[in-house]
């Protein structure tokens, strides 16, 4: 699962737009299950190098539902895609589509899922 998720991460990074199913419960495009696993891995492990594996924060702020409460989803998506100039937060748009950034923000606001290992 672990290995497959990562391989599909690279494969799908190139054609990410094509692997979204039409609509999810919240009315946003939902990544495919394989892509979801890759995104969860990316957030937990690579975002986690600054925000912590449990997303309780580190050099970067905590990304828990309570710390994100009251923040605009659109502005959070923009931070994910374009980074935050003047801080260490880099832009992730080379690795994520807008829809994927939206899905990540939505999961963060709900409580981010754990990795399936």
């Amino acid at each position, binding site marked *: 699962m*672990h*290995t497959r998720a*990562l391989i599909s991460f690279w494969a799908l990074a190139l054609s990410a737009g094509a692997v979204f199913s039409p609509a999810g419960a919240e009315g946003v495009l939902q990544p495919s299950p394989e892509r979801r696993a890759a995104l969860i*891995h990316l957030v937990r*492990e*690579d975002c*986690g*190098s*600054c925000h*912590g*594996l*449990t997303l*309780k*924060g*580190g*050099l970067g702020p905590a990304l828990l539902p309570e710390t994100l409460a009251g923040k605009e989803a659109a502005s959070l998506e923009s931070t994910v895609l374009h*980074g935050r100039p003047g801080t*260490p937060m*880099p*832009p992730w748009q080379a*690795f994520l589509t807008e829809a994927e950034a939206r899905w990540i923000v939505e999961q963060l606001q709900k409580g981010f899922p754990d*990795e399936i*290992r």
Partner: protein
Amino acid sequence: MKSASVLALLVLFLAGCASVQPRGTGDLGLVVERATGAVQVVETSGKTVLGEVEGLGDLSHASAVFSRDERYAYVFGRDGGLTKVDLLARRIDQRVIQAGNSIGGAISTDGRLVAAANYTPGGVKFFDAATLAQVAEIPAIGADGKPSKVVGLVDAPGNRFIFALFEAGEIWLVEMKDPAHPKVTKFPAGKEPYDAIVSPDSRWYIAGLFGEDGLAVLDLWHPEQGVKRVLKDYGQGGQKLPVFKMPHLEGWGFVGPYALLPAVGRHEVLVVDTEKWTLAGKILAAGQPVFVVGQPGSRRVWVNFAFPDNRTVQVIDAVEKRVVKTLHPGKAVLHLEFTPRGENAWVSARDSDKLVIYDTETFEVLKTLPSSSPSGIFFTPRAHRIGW
């Protein structure tokens, strides 16, 4: 006669049960299994995993220092947990949750104090190395009156510790001869120091800056001269790239008069002349360097890289200033550690769930060991190195 030998065998058997074979600890080490909150106890002579110790909490970005008898490891976890692990008994000896969010630590010259660097609440706490009872605390409030995250905490000779304040841009030198009365000297350092290192001769404390080009350098032989800023224009003319993982300065990238250090936001390793404090060269590498670690007994350094180039390790000859070997140990290479005399390099590949052990002369893979999402690798000889 016959019954006597049976009796002798029985005695031997019982003695074998009652006592553990004595063993030294100089070839032991610890591997952080990031996702499961466990550490593996390993040995580098036979290159095997001796066992696992569980229950250490959130170990993302965990690091370790060792007691001077090389029996105990002090593991600093991201969740503020400080755990004293008995490497011989392979169990937790003591454990405290000492902060909300932690980044690393150090052990004093005399081995009696363990210091932990914290993000939340920002500061350094000091613990009795035997009991983990807290003995002192220094909150990291910068000259601007605001709390800062603490980075780059190392020990220095004379029971001193040095660390940097990320937001406040300061370096603090703390003398802990009397733990009840820490003596703190503060220096302005530059914008956003992200990590620091002490040179092998314990003379220089070098902090890398994230918020601007350059390094902040404190001469520990002449602390009264203050922190000087060097290499202020190392990136001039180049475009700084987004940084997907903060570089680290831990490890010795020191070869002769040169210090080899990661360039922030660039696919380069910087070669710094530590006599003149000038840039002696830049080496183009496969990605943004994270760790640049000197191979003991050689003129080489080994480098790993930030996402998305983290499948690669490169070996650089510091004299020829070029990459001499490119390796692909596995997916998401997070850390590497040399055996004390440099004949082997142990590399952790997080997303391949393995440790890869190289012969540093032939680059042959000698062995791979299974490990669950491994990150930091720490060998006990660190116990006797200043500033590790």
